[in-house]
């Protein structure tokens, strides 16, 4: 109960500050918080990245294991993306099986990786119809101060950019690396009142009525979108959000991913 009252007060605060043309943390409407990407932070993982966007902190680990291919794609590797909203990351997160928020987070990140065809799945075939590499992308949220999607998506592609294929451990031979073919980047904007804000912090995320994540590839084409939240969006608002999404993705890619390619 007490928390709900605080939520309402915080929402009012976000609106009040917006009315004077500012954001609660003083940023411009399209400005991201400080981003940092640190790679290869976990040595047991075949690829990993720790991404911080402001106080939001997400650790992504990539693991590979040989497994049986799907019958409709006997010569293709398998991508499995999972997200855990562990209780340490927020007083609102509770232990237990994935809820709809963690499922949505994982599936939106997965959508960008898959649709962009960043991973050449055919190169992950070990023996057609019998054995392929399964790539597990595990998103571990450590601290939730809003905009988990962008942090998780950036962590996923950063981890994938230089993962190693553990051939030796599984008694196999072959290439130990697999270059990515694209670098999808997710950019989330929210609508609060009539304003569109990029990279919402937690206060803003809770005050927002609609959120739109736009994932775009290196050539600027869209590879995934997801609207979330209880609100409505006008056509021109969506068009604007997509425009911001493509522009910001380009900046983030150039700053944090281009030196890895």
């Amino acid at each position, binding site marked *: 109960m007490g928390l709900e009252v605080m939520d309402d007060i915080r929402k009012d605060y976000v609106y009040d500050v917006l009315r004077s043309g500012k954001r609660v943390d003083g940023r411009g409407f399209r400005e991201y918080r400080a981003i940092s990407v640190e790679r290869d932070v976990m040595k047991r993982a075949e690829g990993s990245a720790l991404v911080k966007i402001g106080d939001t902190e997400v650790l992504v680990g990539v693991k590979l294991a040989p497994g049986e291919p799907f019958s409709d794609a006997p010569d293709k590797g398998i991508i499995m993306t999972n997200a855990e909203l562990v209780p340490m990351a927020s007083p609102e997160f509770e232990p237990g099986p994935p809820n709809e928020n963690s499922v949505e987070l994982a599936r939106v990140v997965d959508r960008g990786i898959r649709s962009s065809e960043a991973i050449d799945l055919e190169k992950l075939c070990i023996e057609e119809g019998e054995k392929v590499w399964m790539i597990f992308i595990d998103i571990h949220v450590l601290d939730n101060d809003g905009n988990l999607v962008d942090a998780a998506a950036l962590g996923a592609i950063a981890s994938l950019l230089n993962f190693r294929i553990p051939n030796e451990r599984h008694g196999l031979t072959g290439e130990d690396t697999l270059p990515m073919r694209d670098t999808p980047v997710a950019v989330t904007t929210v609508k609060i009142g009539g304003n569109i804000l990029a990279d919402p912090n937690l206060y803003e995320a809770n005050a927002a009525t609609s959120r739109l994540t736009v994932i775009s590839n290196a050539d600027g084409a869209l590879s995934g979108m997801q609207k979330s939240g209880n609100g409505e969006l006008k056509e021109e608002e969506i*068009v604007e959000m997509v425009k911001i999404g493509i522009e910001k993705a380009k900046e983030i890619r150039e700053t944090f991913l281009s030196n890895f390619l």
Partner: protein
Amino acid sequence: MKEGEKEIELIKKGKRLDGRGFEELRPIKIEVGVLKRADGSCYFEMGDNKVMAAVYGPREMHPRHFQDAKMAVVKYRYNMAPFSVDDRKRPGPDRRSVEISKVSREAFDPVIIKEYYPKTAIDVYVEILQSDAGTRTAGINAASVALADAGIPMKDMVSSVAVGKIGGEVVLDLSGMEDNYGEADMPVAMVARTNTITLLQMDGNFKKEEFERGLKLAMDACHKIYELQRTALIERYSKSVGEGEGEE
């Protein structure tokens, strides 16, 4: 469709495999009030999709700690029957249906006037009986009509359709083949009266201009679907008046 896979020609002589034009919907059939026990229901066909929606409530919310003192809680369950797809689907919720249920529920959030029924639950059940791409949009169309049939106060109905890209062309309302071998898929749900979008998802590959054209195409088609939903409801209720077909 990744390069190197067998190419399927989805467009021949300017027509789609099922003979439709690029901006043409599949045939739609709507029946209102098809279930006896539910407070509201709808059977909806969109091409080869066969979908049933039922609404229960407003009714007491269990467990009680999920009650909201200020408004009704809307629950939405999208479920595929095991026989609705080529390879039997394992019964019960999977990650895909959890996500679809979430975004579909949110698609109705702006229209349902929940404040009228504090502490209650409104349950929306959508069963996909036969699928052929666009099941979530067919489910939303069916749920809209079922909610209206149940007498749930709403600002308006929600109408939904997908657009996509096949053979480089932006087209309306993808069929199963087009979805499997096409280049992009974007489901949209809209409130017709206000022209506002309440559901938007996309995967595949859309250039910015293609996306903008697709969105317009979907919005126009939602208006057409909206008229069919309205007509079905009007027909149902103008028929039952004075025919002794009262509710129990």
